[in-house]
């Protein structure tokens, strides 16, 4: 069966510090991978998605970047965090190309920028 792992679960970072969140998927190959953010009181905002190694699409201009160095690995990064980067970050994968695009989410990473 497929599983998705995301870490760290929680982190507190000072403004201006770097960020690296990692996500890996097991039990599938060539998944579509996604990074979402849920800010306080808001819905789920798509940040990045990837359909293959090295292929990254960005949905919103921001202080963050994403990379996919391996087929089942997706990394979210920042060189210098802003206060507004605080939120709950979710990695997800999909192997559903039928149209419904059902996503399976990781457990999330709570980022607090102080």
């Amino acid at each position, binding site marked *: 069966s497929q599983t998705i792992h995301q870490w760290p679960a929680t982190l507190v970072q000072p403004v201006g510090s770097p960020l690296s969140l990692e996500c890996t998927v097991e039990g599938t190959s060539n998944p579509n991978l996604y990074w979402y953010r849920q800010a306080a009181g808001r*819905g*789920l905002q798509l940040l990045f998605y990837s*359909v293959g190694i090295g292929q990254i*699409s960005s949905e919103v201009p921001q202080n963050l970047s994403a990379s996919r160095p391996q087929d089942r690995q997706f990394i979210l990064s920042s060189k210098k965090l802003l206060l507004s980067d605080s939120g709950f970050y979710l990695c997800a994968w999909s192997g559903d190309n039928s149209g*419904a*695009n*059902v996503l399976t*989410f990781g457990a*999330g990473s709570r980022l607090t920028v102080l």
Partner: protein
Amino acid sequence: DQQVKQNSPSLSVQEGRISILNCDYTNSMFDYFLWYKKYPAEGPTFLISISSIKDKNEDGRFTVFLNKSAKHLSLHIVPSQPGDSAVYFCAVTYYGGSQGNLIFGKGTKLSVKP
């Protein structure tokens, strides 16, 4: 401008009664509609979906209704149980769009009281 709206941020229901969660969308090109359930500090989990060619889909206690003329989607939970207490997100997608084409509403927090 929001393409997917969940106008009720919260809903409280007595155990055993029906819970009705609503969602409105703007684009008639959307062709799949999904509901996700999210517990605090966890990733959302897929609940149920419906294709635009249908008007009803049922899975156990969960039924999703689609009214295309009104661009309205609803999720019925019968009977409601305390374990159903969570945030529910509706999401829409359209075939032929990019793989990042899943658009979420802001969520409705359901509280089921014993």
